[in-house]
């Protein structure tokens, strides 16, 4: 691999890694792709991956175990029309790639003459997460010491804290993707995450509080005491708050969502519904709504894979397309879907840099990166005051959507009643349910306080998990169904 990539950085390091360690050079990539192209296929690609993950976890005051996992292999895909053949091997070599190519191309019967693939360096456009020290190279002993600090700090916060569980999870991933059009792109992706969970007990009542944070940056960034102590403070605060929380009301009411993580609303309610595969197949509640109003005026939603250091950010997607900032909803009007190569090709549009996969063992799908609503002009306090009686939801656990009916849910981990425009008593176990194509039309206020989440989101689709981010300013949504137990 002679010519360095335009941006240098992580792309060069990844190329050098695969060449030095596995002797993968341009000629060998071309050979494997040629095998796939011996049949009548439109496109083929190779995806090489070498990922190290380590995690250290603490409970009952001691670091009980250290884990280290190596995931390596190559996935080969052949595409013809809507058809995809996929094969993978856990051995990184040209021979394995050729064998897999022979299997993947079986979706096409006819043989075809083709010009030999000429590998060329593609511009990766970004270098969003340069790190000096890979997080997996930080000595385990340092992580152990840090977890012990977290444990001591959490227990000192409040005598009601009865259990502390904490973990530091680090990942370092090398990937290289080569397509039959000759495109060859590589990247090195760091990912860190620190998790703190505490159990608070008061008499017979027990409640859990959780807070985590992370992203694609050096682990050292999380060592800032303001950062990690902030996580612990939050976990303890939420656990203690839940000890006081009352049963949640049930029924339709006006809801104010706080900034940051409540952006999961966007992810579930509209994000999945705007993924290209569902719209190409017309199985989404958003199919054929392009150019139509799907949200209130003032609502602009983007999916942006290009934010430095974010958990959902990627220099290139897992098909080699540079990530982009894609506007999905512009001032209430649906203007864009998120695409991988296959669905973009079939719908006659350009890929948007959203073709992602969990690992070499998985086929790429259109997936989100960092999805958020742009800030509005309202004062968050004024938004709360505008609601006479309702629910103020500040933090959430998971969510899920039925793409076809458009119905989505997400579950609050911190929420309060709003009584006469004031934040009232905390409530527990609030699940919100709504209809994706319709919920954003009922957004009546948008705050000026856009915040992105802390960097802990993982999105699941077709059994594949990928790291994502969300964000939201404070917003008011009218008439959302809240699933509590109190009538």
């Amino acid at each position: 691999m002679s010519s360095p990539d335009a941006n240098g950085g992580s792309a060069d390091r990844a190329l050098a890694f695969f060449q030095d360690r596995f002797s993968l050079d341009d000629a060998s990539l071309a050979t494997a792709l040629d095998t796939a192209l011996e049949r009548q296929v439109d496109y083929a690609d190779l995806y090489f991956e070498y990922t190290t993950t380590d995690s250290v976890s603490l409970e009952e005051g001691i670091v009980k175990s250290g884990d280290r996992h190596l995931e390596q292999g190559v996935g080969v895909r052949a595409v013809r029309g809507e058809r995809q053949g996929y094969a993978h091997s856990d051995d990184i070599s040209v021979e394995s790639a050729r064998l897999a190519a022979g299997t993947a191309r079986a979706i096409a019967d006819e043989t075809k003459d083709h010009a030999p693939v000429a590998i060329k360096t593609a511009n990766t456009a970004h270098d969003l997460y340069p790190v000096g020290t890979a997080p997996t190279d930080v000595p385990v002993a340092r992580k152990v010491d840090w977890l012990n600090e977290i444990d001591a700090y959490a227990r000192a916060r409040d005598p009601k804290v009865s259990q502390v569980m904490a973990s530091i999870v680090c990942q370092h991933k090398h990937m290289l993707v080569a397509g039959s059009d000759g495109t060859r792109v590589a990247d090195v992706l760091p990912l860190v995450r620190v998790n703190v969970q505490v159990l608070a007990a008061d008499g017979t009542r027990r409640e859990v509080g959780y807070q985590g944070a992370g992203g694609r940056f050096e682990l050292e960034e999380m060592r800032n005491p303001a950062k990690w102590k902030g996580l612990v403070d939050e976990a303890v605060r939420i656990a203690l708050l839940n000890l006081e929380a009352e049963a949640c009301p049930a029924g339709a009411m006006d809801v104010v969502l706080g900034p940051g993580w409540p952006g999961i609303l966007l992810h579930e309610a509209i994000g999945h519904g705007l993924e290209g595969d569902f719209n190409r197949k017309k199985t989404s509640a958003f199919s054929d709504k392009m150019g139509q109003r799907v949200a209130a005026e003032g609502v602009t939603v983007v999916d942006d894979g290009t934010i430095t250091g974010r958990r959902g950010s990627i220099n290139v997607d897992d098909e080699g397309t540079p990530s982009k900032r894609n506007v999905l909803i512009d001032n209430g009007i649906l203007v864009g879907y998120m695409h991988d190569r296959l669905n973009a090709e079939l719908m006659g549009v350009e890929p948007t840099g959203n073709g992602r996969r969990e690992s070499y063992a998985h086929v790429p799908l259109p997936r989100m990166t960092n999805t958020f609503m742009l800030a509005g002009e309202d004062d968050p306090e004024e938004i709360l005051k505008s609601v006479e009686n309702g629910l103020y939801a500040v933090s959430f656990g998971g969510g899920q959507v039925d793409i076809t009916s458009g119905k989505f849910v997400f579950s609050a981990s911190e929420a309060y009643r709003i009584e006469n425009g004031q934040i009232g008593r905390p409530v527990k176990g609030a699940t919100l349910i709504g209809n994706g194509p319709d919920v954003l039309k009922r957004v009546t206020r948008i705050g000026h306080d856009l915040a992105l989440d802390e960097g802990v989101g993982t999105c699941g689709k077709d059994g594949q998990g990928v790291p994502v981010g969300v964000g939201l300013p404070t917003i008011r949504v009218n008439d959302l169904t809240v699933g509590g137990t109190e009538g």
Partner: protein
Amino acid sequence: MSATQAEMEAVVQRALDAAARAGASQADVLLVEGDDREVRVRGSEIEFVKQAQERGLGIRALVDGKEGRQTSIVSTSDLAPDAIERMAAEAVALAKATAADPTAGLPDGGFAEEIPDLALFDAQDRNVALEARIEDAKRAEAAARDFDPRIDNSEGSQASSGYARVVYGNSLGFVGSYESASHGLFSEPLAREGDSMQRDYWMTSGRRLSDLEDAASVGRKAADRAIRRLGGKSIKTCEAPVIFDGLTAPSLIGQIASCVSGYSIYRESSFLGDKLGEKIAASEVTIIDDGRLPGGLGSKPFDGEGQPTRRNTIVENGELKTWLLDTYSGRKLGLDSTGSAARGTGSAPRVGTTNLWLEPGEKTLDEMIAELDRGLIVTELIGMGFNPTTGDYSRGAAGLWVENGEILHPVEEITIAGNLGDMLQSIDRIGSELAWRGRTASPPIRIASMTIAGA
């Protein structure tokens, strides 16, 4: 390319020897080799074909510390002798960085002495060509699409076949292995009428291809479920009886099992933590986990620590009889393992279920509907609104509204909420139909009253 059992056992032994040389006082090794195929047909097109062989090796190394053992887990797919040697050394070094835990360690004994044949695969199925599975998917897809003119689209029909060989060995001399297979067929059609578009699914799975439900029947049932959701609407917020059908009830049973896992008990994070020996559910409720059901999708001859699997009655006539335990959580609670260790190559043993089910009752689902004055049948649940520490339960649901014993209309955009502890006590009907579609099964269940939040 597939290794023989003897070759795999040799790799496990090599890893155990390497761990000992590197300084581990105890070690265990899990080696899994799999061969998976998956096909999806959408409309008349074969949309996706995937074939893969995978393998994974996991080493758990235990090193004697001052007051207990230090533990690490290392995993890889690189089985070359020098890679295994390196990995074992890395595992020992990693373990030495952790704290000594007086509870950590291999089981003291009691390893499986025989490996019973649990009918986990049918050798004949190995010869079934990929084309035959494509044909299954095509038949399911065609049956779904032909079921009704309102079925005009789909997410496709998917067939899968996987074969695996598991070898587990430890430094106390136990080595065991078994082969298994699992086959599945899944169909997910879309129905459309006016502005309403709905999807639903039906599936079948089993250890042998001959266990699977007929492909056309899978497609028809999926289509019927999608059609009956058309025109769904929300309802007014109310309290009413709720029937979980055979597809949604197993999730409740799984949640109960997660709350009797030894880990959640010693961590004091289960709402059932102080209820052993108490009546936690209606008298008709008996819940069993049995790792040795012949042909069961959760069956295995030994667990993730080499302990024999067995039948554990978790709840008997409403009374909570046992926790589910592996060695570690058992020691924490002063109890023996229940043979419930689940283990992947990249993870330490944890408690898991095998074949888990609720014992069936007397009435068919149709009879349960016929005697319902007013209430909800839940046919789909979404979201994860369950808190095991408190038992608080609130999930998104879709289903059917019943009045005077008749299904009136489909329901959607609602939540159902309650507390699992109260819900268990107020189970007042258990259906007679028990069908296995995975590792957890349940007949339909009726809860006397839950809060339904809607419009």
